[in-house]
């Protein structure tokens, strides 16, 4: 089946005016077009990566490679990348799983060859303390600054208590005001 056919069909019967659209498609042509459109995904299905024989291993492999970086296309995971390199590593992981290796062993195998860079979740070790702890340091610093700022501000806003004399003065003013209103 030629997937290009629906488009030539469309082109040949392309209406001169929009209003003519209804007349240019016969019901038969429309159904044919619909069939082509619906069938199109089937022709692509063949290009998908071959499914491994064991769906359990495939699932485990995908779960594991979700957390691994493809070194060729560095912002993609091994699971999501279509690079040839990612394909090879997925095959390697699949084979090691078939050989009953644990996830830990497979990750160690990859780290030994490609370094921690292959992990999307870098391990906690002296070189990465800043990476893991940095956000918390920023959070604590920010919280500290906020705390002291608010404390200082409260002091500034807080009204100093009135002295005896000010108190009397204020009362006199209030009385005067009442007298005016009456």
């Amino acid at each position, binding site marked *: 089946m030629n997937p290009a056919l629906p488009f030539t069909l469309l082109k040949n019967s392309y209406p001169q005016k929009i209003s003519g659209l209804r007349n240019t498609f016969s019901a038969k042509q429309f159904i044919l077009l619909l069939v082509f459109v619906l069938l199109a995904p089937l022709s692509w299905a063949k290009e998908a990566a071959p499914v491994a024989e064991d769906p359990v291993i495939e699932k485990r492999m995908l779960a594991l490679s979700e957390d691994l970086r493809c*070194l*060729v296309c*560095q912002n993609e995971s091994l699971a999501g990348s279509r690079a*040839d*390199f990612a394909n*090879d*590593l997925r095959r*390697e992981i699949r084979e090691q799983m078939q050989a009953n290796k644990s996830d830990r062993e497979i990750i160690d195998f990859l*780290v*030994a*060859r*490609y*370094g*921690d*860079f292959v992990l999307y979740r870098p391990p906690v070790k002296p070189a990465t303390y800043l990476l893991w702890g940095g956000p918390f340091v920023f959070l604590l610093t920010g919280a500290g600054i906020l705390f002291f700022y608010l404390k200082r501000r409260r002091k500034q806003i807080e009204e100093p208590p009135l002295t005896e004399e000010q108190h009397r003065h204020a009362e006199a003013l209030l009385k005067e005001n009442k007298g005016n209103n009456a």
Partner: protein
Amino acid sequence: MTRFLLPLAAFIVLVVFLAVGLGLKPREVPSPLIGKPAPIFQSQLLHEPGKMLASQDNLGKVWLLNVWASWCVSCREEHPLLVELARSGIVPIYGLNYKDKRDLALQWLNQYGDPYTVSVVDPEGRIGIDYGVYGVPETYVIDKNGVIRHKQIGPVTVESLEKKILPLIKELQG
């Protein structure tokens, strides 16, 4: 005046971080294999499929392992240098023909020259995985004890040869 100093200082720090970040090369992932024994392989020769080369055969000499392929565009860039280096006789270069087809690889060597003492084939990229290859070309400097001492990611250049690879080879051979 001082109220501007703090933001200015913060801004300068930020600019320095960004400038350093721009200078980094995220493509060049440092290999954890440096200082470790080179992974052992045994594979068919490109020219004579009936013969095998084992990496242990190279113990006792300093050698380069150059990962190449006929489909690799950057390999063409470094190739004249490798041919020249091979001609100088300073160090033997062994080729790892990575994920390639034999006829295309042979044709490629015919066209551009063959600097390799021998090339071994790695049609499925398995030796490549053991060596942590993720891009071609890559070149490893391996010492007399079979330990990887340096990895050049990407094409060998005049600069990398003169500054790093040749001095290192001299030191290892001495």
